[in-house]
């Protein structure tokens, strides 16, 4: 049972001090979670702390590789709409 940080992480440090198990560490190109230490915050917090503060959609994955903050969940810009906006901007 452990989460994973992937390359879309912007190294913002928000998650690191919050982890109850000191599982998160600074690394390049991006922060990492020590899978041996991460227990998904079970028993410590109702919500996984790193997932609750991470500002980047898709930067943290669960064990099945699914984003815990899926596209649109934080920005409110759902992917289809996002694509349309980009297209509109390019056309303008």
């Amino acid at each position, binding site marked *: 049972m452990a989460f994973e940080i992937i390359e879309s992480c912007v190294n913002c440090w*928000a998650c690191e001090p919050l982890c109850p198990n000191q599982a998160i560490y600074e690394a390049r190109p991006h922060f990492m979670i020590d899978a041996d230490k991460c227990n998904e915050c079970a028993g410590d917090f109702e919500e996984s702390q790193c997932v*609750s503060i991470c500002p980047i959609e898709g930067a943290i994955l669960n064990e099945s590789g699914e984003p815990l903050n899926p596209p649109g969940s934080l*920005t409110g810009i759902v992917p289809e709409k996002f694509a349309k906006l*980009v297209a509109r*901007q390019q056309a303008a």
Partner: protein
Amino acid sequence: MELPVLNNVAPDASGCQSGSCGSTDDQMGHLPEHIREKVFNHPCYSEEAHHYFARMHVAVAPACNIQCHYCNRKYDCANESRPGVVSELHHPVQAVKKVLAVAATIPQMTVLGIAGPGDPLANPERTFETFRMLAEQAPDIKLCVSTNGLSLPDHIDELAKHNIDHVTITINCVDPDVGALIYPWIFWKNKRIKGREAAAILIEQQQKGLEMLVARGILVKVNSVLIPGVNDRHLAEVSRIVKAKGAFLHNVMPLISEAEHGTFYGMTGQRGPTAEELQALQDECSGDMNMMRHCRQCRADAVGMLGEDRGDEFTMEKIEAMDINYPEAMKMRAEIHAAINEELDAKRAAKHAKVHSIEEIRPKPATRPVLMAVATRGSGVINEHFGHAREFLIYEASASGVRFIGHRKTVAYCEGGDTCGDGMSALDKSIEVLSGCEVVLCSKIGFEPWGPLEKAGITPNGEHAMEPIEDAILAVYEEMLSNGKLDARPAEQQKVA
């Protein structure tokens, strides 16, 4: 990043109050003495001092506990003088070294701020360790901190301990329904909270923090980002409320929103205000409150005077090689500060005398106010070439004197490509930011921009190079008066049209 800066006097007010008059600097006249003392020679609050002193930021606080729609954590935040996470992040010990090196090299550096890259109070250990060391090692540097306010109430005691000169809170709204359009989520009590509920908590914490700081006698400045269609109609109320609670200054900044910043507002096409919209709002709020108009949204990790950046001289590598004897540097700094203050005092006295004489000779003519733009690199004189200017200082001349209105940024059209990326030429951009101005004063101007400027109703003027800004503006105003140019009212006609 202010004295003629503080405007709570209507543009047509004339005469002197409480021994101060003429320039907008003196509109601090109504502030309590202990606050005036604190802000008089402060580069962030005194437009005049701003030409002589400088401030710097250190990036020691990476984490943030809220999301704003105008922010993309990756990049420097254009709105809140906050560096992005790609900027060089400093450990407190490194940050202190850097500050001492800069202060010893640039004696004008008098204010040190912590503003990011995240929220300083979401990184309390790193922020307060930096303050603690600086208070000990460099007691001649003023300390300040900017925050979104969410965890402000938890840190009031610690802030009071470090003798913080002032705290800036970014308050964009006092209504959760407005807030829900600006803040998608906050991290609060170990949970992510979204929408209106999040905004309500943030607003409550900001207001509580403001009240607690004022109760402790700590100066509070409030920053607001003006977002057209979102909080533009709401900010006058914000101004009223924060003033009633004891904030001493309200700084309304324009939203900066470019698609390539990748922010929510950038992506969804939310526009920023025009220079005129910003000024109208500042005027609306200034009836209620001291407005700060010369803030140029300095880049939070920039080092130097007036928008210049000498950061390259102070990379960590170079700093490690420097041998700084700060106690010695402090003596040199004290001498330089005393000399600058003397110069400032002399200028103020001279201005005071001059305004009197102008009022005496002029029998209250019904002249209209005129906006003029100035290209300057500092020291309070006209010393920048039109084509090199990255910003213009805007002043209003009227029968009652000269008043500073604000900064408008542009792209130096002499530099680089001829476009600003959006197909607009740099000269067009300058003409656009100068809209409403009738004169632009600079040390020199080329032949090429002359015609387009005049066509846009802006008279270029290079006759006052190296002269003090306010003297030059008055001289031009008097000249316009004697040429009969102040009888016509082009500005108003335009408004009607």
